[in-house]
């Protein structure tokens, strides 16, 4: 059953600059979808547009169907009802995403007070239980602390506690571990994995790390230049990506794991992500692509079978590892 269906989502600035350009994908009930791409490819904006929290001056068009309800068309009041309830979000920066003047327990109980109408006392009790569920040591003590008394990893756990407090159907996690120490990243991801499994909810995980996605997700959506360039099941995307950009991302994340063959230099993707509005015409990845051809001057459309789609004029057809061409 389709839970979230994003159709032709565009996010543009007041000046008409398209930062997200015609993004479409679906998330099924209980499915885990990874949204990958470098910084500047529009994945965070896509996430914010889905939950309706775009910054001032940004406008979203298209459709975001959540349980057949178009979130872009409903009132802000209705969106407030859904946010934190059926649709919750975990942010990238745990250091700044908690109110410094509010005790952790009170903050964790906030969503429950908003959506379940819990009393202050009941919310405080529920918060302690939630903090225990996210494996914070001494949840009673943590509940009466201020955010600055917790570490980054602990704060991110508290954020996750808020996100799952109202039994969401979909959790949108925007690079939940990027701001954390490498040593705690893994444990926080394991926790997210377990919570999503326990809740049986769907997950939209935004990251640039394909290694993380390959462990946690069922399906992968690759974005570049504000467009979806490839969609497919995770096994397919990791073993034989069709888009050169997905392959390049894969190469960079595999090289970080210890057992990967290393010749000393870490693989990189040549060039930089251009600033918004400065992507080349046609295929946005054209200038950085090792397989570019004259055909790439025209925009490739997302095409393929029901499970796997790619937007590329010269997709990779051989599995990774075999010599190209």
């Amino acid at each position, binding site marked *: 059953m389709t839970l979230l269906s994003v159709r032709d989502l565009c996010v543009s600035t007041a000046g008409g600059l398209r930062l997200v350009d015609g993004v479409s994908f679906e998330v099924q009930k209980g499915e885990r979808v990874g949204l990958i791409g470098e910084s500047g490819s529009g994945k965070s904006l896509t996430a914010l547009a889905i939950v309706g929290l775009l910054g001032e001056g940004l406008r979203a068009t298209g459709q975001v169907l959540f349980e057949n309800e178009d979130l872009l068309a409903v009132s802000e009041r209705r969106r407030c009802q859904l946010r*934190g309830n059926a649709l919750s979000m975990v942010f990238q920066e745990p250091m700044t995403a908690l109110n410094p003047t509010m005790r952790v327990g009170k903050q964790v109980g906030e969503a429950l007070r908003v959506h379940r109408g819990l009393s202050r006392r009941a919310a405080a009790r529920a918060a302690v239980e939630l903090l225990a569920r996210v494996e914070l040591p001494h949840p009673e003590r943590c509940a009466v602390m201020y955010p600055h008394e917790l570490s980054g990893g602990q704060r991110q756990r508290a954020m996750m506690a*808020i996100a799952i407090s109202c039994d969401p159907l979909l959790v949108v996690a925007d690079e939940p571990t990027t701001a954390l120490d490498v040593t705690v990243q893994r444990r926080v991801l394991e926790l997210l994995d377990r919570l999503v499994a326990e809740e049986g909810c769907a997950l939209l995980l935004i990251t640039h790390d394909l290694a993380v996605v390959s462990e946690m997700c069922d399906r992968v959506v690759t974005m570049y230049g504000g467009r979806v360039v490839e969609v497919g099941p995770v096994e397919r995307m990791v073993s034989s990506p069709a888009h050169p950009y997905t392959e390049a991302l894969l190469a960079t994340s595999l090289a970080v794991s210890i057992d990967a063959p290393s010749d000393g230099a870490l693989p990189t993707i040549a060039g930089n992500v251009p600033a918004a509005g400065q992507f080349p015409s046609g295929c946005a990845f054209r200038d950085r692509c090792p397989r570019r051809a004259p055909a790439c001057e025209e925009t490739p459309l997302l095409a393929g079978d029901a499970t796997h789609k790619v937007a590329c004029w010269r997709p990779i057809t051989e599995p990774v590892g075999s010599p190209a061409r």
Partner: protein
Amino acid sequence: MTAAPVEIAGACQRDRAGIRRWARNPSAAAGGALVGLIVAVALVSLVWTPYPPLAVDPSHSLAGPSWSHPLGTDQYGRDVLSRLMAGSRVSLYAGVVSVLVATVAGVPAGLLAAQWGGVPAQVVLRLSDVLYAFPALLAAIVLSAALGSSTTTAMLAIGIAFVPVLVRVTRSNALVVLGSDYVLAARAYGRRPLAILRRHVLPNIATTLIAQMSLLFSLAILAEAGLDYLGLGTTPPTASWGDMIQTAQNYLSQDPLLSVWPGTAIFLAVLGFSLLGEGTAELRNARLGRSA
């Protein structure tokens, strides 16, 4: 539930620790002591002063300090210490009324201006500019003429003059908080705009507001004294520090000390409230793990 006792015990510990931290912060301790002293004097003066502050004794006019009149007497032979004590009530009242007026009007206006943005915010801000441009003294004169000269009228004028200050301080600080990640997170868990202002924005700008309000409080005491001096505030014979300075001026050559006493009282009150505000802000920042 086992959490409750832990929570309560924790809170008590924090309270004791809070008092210790308070005592160790020089600004907070000195400010708290001065303000506490003034409040205590004002309370005592309600039930007891060495002499009735209005009792005239022509045989002892302009008598210098003595055992029976520690701070001397004024031109009507009224006991200066008694009048100084009674005058503290007027000063505190002045501060409370004007800061209350300014806060009740200015803080919500500033918060809403920050939240709304656009045209409504511009309207609020331009109105506050107009208020700011209007001379406070003139406002006081107009209000006194309309409502009759009294402490309350004078303080209403001062309070109104303070409104734009609080509007601006509130709005600019609220804008910063509204752009923060935790406000975004609060929206992400479904908090509505007004609740965000109350639960997230207000507590985070409280430090600045407290500091600003205590500064305004001390300014109000000064302004009240100034308006009394001009005859626009508290009307004689009620004892007020500003009025005492004004009358003392006529006897500066005969009894210079007469103006020193109320002057010192005003100085200490202003210093006390400024220090208290500064110290409170420092302590709150320290508790929330913020620097400066």
